[in-house]
């Protein structure tokens, strides 16, 4: 009997057949969620901003997002941002951001998993959550409009806990090549 282990998953190798229609721009809630999930990845990885640019280059989006500023400009379509850009995000840009998100979530999956696992020691998990939430709060305060109720809720230690956990859980479920379709469908929810 021949034995073979699974090949490493590659984001670019994800099949595109059977995906939801491409010709649909992300709705407002989808843009918010996409940017928040990217922000969570940055909170998990201290060098997340640079890692996103590096990953976009390695996935073949180097010409689209050659530097952090270009990436930031696309993410500023999130209406929750302090410096928010009007208009829809281009479909190709949104797809590239989604691929980058799935790739980054795949890279950080071990860290995401430890946050979600009930098998880890409770005090260690609480410490990890504390670090993550502190970093996320810093990023939210720095980049998001604090007058928005959704930002205030996310920053609230009690009321925002469920939402923050949902964001991390979503990162675990969209990590890797298979997660792209799930992410795309969920971000288009409000548009249907």
């Amino acid at each position, binding site marked *: 009997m021949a034995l*073979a282990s699974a090949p490493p998953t590659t984001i670019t190798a994800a099949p595109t057949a059977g995906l939801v229609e491409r010709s649909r721009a992300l709705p407002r809630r989808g843009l918010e969620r996409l940017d928040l999930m990217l922000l969570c990845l940055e909170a998990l990885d201290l060098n997340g901003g640079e890692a996103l640019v590096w990953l976009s280059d390695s996935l073949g989006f180097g010409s689209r997002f050659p530097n952090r500023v270009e990436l930031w400009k696309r993410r500023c379509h999130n209406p929750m941002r302090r410096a928010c850009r009007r208009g829809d995000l281009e479909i190709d840009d949104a797809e590239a951001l989604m691929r980058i998100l799935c790739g980054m979530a795949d890279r950080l999956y071990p860290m995401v998993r430890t946050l979600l696992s009930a098998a880890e020691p409770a005090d260690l998990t609480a410490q990890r959550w504390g670090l993550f939430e502190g970093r996320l709060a810093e990023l939210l305060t720095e980049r998001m409009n604090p007058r928005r109720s959704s930002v205030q809720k996310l920053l609230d230690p009690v009321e925002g806990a469920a939402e923050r956990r949902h964001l991390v859980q979503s990162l*675990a*479920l969209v990590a890797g090549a*298979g*997660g792209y379709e*799930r992410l795309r*469908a969920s971000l288009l929810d409000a*548009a249907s």
Partner: protein
Amino acid sequence: MVVAYPMKRSLVYDQQSCQLRVEGLPDLSAGHAVEELGILTGWNLRWTGRPELEGQRSHLEALIAAVLPYARHLVSGLRRGFGEESGPVWIGPSAAGPGHTLRLVSGQNGNPCLDLELDDAELADLVRVLDQLRLDPRVKLPLAVASPRPLRSGEIIRRIPIQRRLAAPVGGVAVLALATALAVLLPPPARQPSRALEAGLVAPPAAPGKPQP
């Protein structure tokens, strides 16, 4: 002389808490290469500290058909069960806590159904091994996996608890009923005769049938 080639293949997909192993043969009649898997002869799923699961192709398909849509709906924030109640696999939110219950019904008579309580990390591991299997280019099994679709607004509204959904309409109806009751309780104002009539400036209306001068 007949040379027997070791045709049976085994593919392993590993995650931290579970390992999926599928075994089968290439379907040479369909033109599959030797390293590909076109006929599934068996599979098993090993969990850390849990009983090992194994079954036939239909069970694997049922597992994929229940777990992947459940995960997709979780990403949208919708927690509801997937899989047929009478089918071999059902997955849904745990009644005991924030985790997930994977219910497996044995095909052998007399065996009770097995309920596995999974936390979020174990569910994510399971989803990843199933993703690895269905996206593996060496696996040529026609696994029926529905591609994820955006949820309709009717489905999205299920995320909101029914109390919150009903609060506004019930409150509105209650306020309307209260206002109506108060309005009914108020006495109707007494009818005042008009001043012109009192002063005799206007003739009272003629009785019907009487000719006017």
